């Protein structure tokens, strides 16, 4: 693991604040290269004004999350889709 980023499990707390499910187990598809993998495999840069999650394959930004005092901004334009496991 590089010292400038951590893995996608670091997104768990911030995403759980917004979504009712743990999104780190969801499978995402990168809009840049088509890589398919769990959110937990993303490379997360958090020494920044927000969380920046990049594709482990092409390094494009797939998810950004900015947390303000009383609101959050979630940018998923680098993600084609998220496949979210649900109880059957």
């Amino acid at each position, binding site marked *: 693991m590089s010292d400038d980023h951590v893995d996608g499990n670091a997104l768990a707390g911030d995403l759980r604040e917004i979504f009712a499910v743990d999104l780190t187990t969801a499978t995402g598809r990168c809009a840049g290269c088509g890589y398919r993998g769990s959110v937990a495999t993303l490379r997360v*840069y958090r*020494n*920044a004004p927000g969380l*920046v999650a*990049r594709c482990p394959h092409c*390094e494009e930004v797939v998810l950004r999350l*900015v947390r303000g005092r009383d609101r959050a901004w979630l940018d998923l334009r680098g993600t084609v889709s998220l496949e979210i496991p649900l109880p059957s």
Partner: protein
Amino acid sequence: MLTAGPTPRVPTDRWEFTVSTEVGQKYTWSWQQLIELPAEKITVDIHCVTKWSKLGTRWKGVSLDVLLEEVETAADFALVQSYGGYTTNLPLEDLLDGQAWVAYRYDDDDLTPEHGGPARLLVPHLYFWKSAKWVRGIQLLIEDEPGFWESAGYHDYGDPWREQRYQGD
């Protein structure tokens, strides 16, 4: 060290700085041309949006007044572009009149890639996310266009004295 991605490492023999205008005219400087321009030593306080400030930081760089002197434009806005894909927007007038530099030395040393080298923008009167690391150019625009953080909730202007962190602040 704040970074939104892998650190770009751009050798100075491949480095270029390009200003492009709203009509598509381009003005480009090589590294050699940049460092041959009149440079200034700047001592300024800087303010990061993650709530730290650093007082009396010492830089050397070329004023944007010098780089934009011959540029013909009717633009009111600038979108600053970096190696690695980062962008940030600000009004063109905030780059002029001794308010902004392309800086290539910090504390008497060359800027390392981790600090945004070989050259970074320095706009100390705005929050430091506007001072783009690894700067490679400026696009001059008639209409404002949000940059990397500005399109994810951060303020289009970012005045630290008015604590303009997020949209609507």
